[in-house]
């Protein structure tokens, strides 16, 4: 029955993203034109709260047995991959106005052409997985 919880988390995340308008193509354009603080405010305050949470977890982890520690893992540094993958992602992000979470939210909101974005994303992921070993990391 674990999956019921995971679906519930998804519903909560979607409501926050939609209500914050983080799924809006218009908001993404406005952010890249630096004409409103809205998206920066969303991003910075989300990072700020998560940062405080991570620090508290670190402190608490110190007093816990290894098996009870909350896992905190930084994603490994892969210079070329992080930058080149990041730029590619950014190109698609501003064109479609959607990062991965919003793609699913837009489909739910009945913007059916977002299914095309998802189909493209799955194809892109499949191609990446196939050529992964040949790319500079």
């Amino acid at each position, binding site marked *: 029955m674990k999956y019921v919880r995971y679906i519930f988390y998804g519903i909560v995340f979607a409501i926050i993203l939609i209500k914050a308008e983080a799924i809006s193509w218009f908001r993404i354009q406005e952010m890249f034109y630096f004409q409103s603080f809205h998206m920066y405010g969303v991003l910075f305050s989300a*990072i700020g709260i998560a940062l405080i949470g991570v620090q508290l977890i670190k402190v608490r982890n110190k007093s816990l047995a290894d098996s009870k520690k909350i896992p905190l893992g930084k994603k490994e540094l892969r210079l070329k991959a992080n930058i080149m993958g990041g730029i590619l992602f950014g190109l698609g992000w501003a064109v479609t106005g959607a990062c991965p979470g919003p793609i699913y939210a837009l489909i739910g909101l009945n913007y059916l052409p977002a299914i095309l974005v998802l189909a493209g994303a799955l194809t892109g992921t499949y191609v990446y997985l196939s050529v992964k070993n040949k790319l500079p990391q």
Partner: protein
Amino acid sequence: MPEYFSQLIYESWPWYVGGPLIGLFAISVLLIERKALGVSSSFEQFCAVALPAGEKRNFILKDTWQIWFVFGIAIGGAILHLAHLDTEFVQISAGTKGILNQQGVTDFTGYVPSELYTFAVPQSIILILGGFVIGFGSRYAGGCTAGHSIMGIAQSAPSSILATAGFFAGGLISTYFIVPFILSL
């Protein structure tokens, strides 16, 4: 019912409500489930289903919770839509509205422009290509805005700071050079 309460239900939220909630959400999932928030690995989960049985497939499929999570994101969208709790207009700044209008956007209702989100031919291809680089790029970079820009930067991970710089560099190139061209099609 106090007015601000009904505003939260029926209208969009200011950044200082939505942003902190995203941070709280990420930390809650980490505490309760011991899992780091992320969305783009769901693409790999779906792809693994298409891979031949073997080690590689099993390796990717060890994290299937994401499939249920993104299914929930779509359901969340549908709930807000059916309950009419999604917004009719996103109140963007007059400046951006003017620029986009000059580039050919006339329909400012909803969350995305109907000129772009349509099954018509050039637009469909653009949406698929846009999705393609989102999928390819996020997996190549090792995560997306959720995993890198929020969870990663919160842990001051160098990989996440670099990836986020890349997200913005790519986004700026698109906004200033590619989107105006697309909207002229």
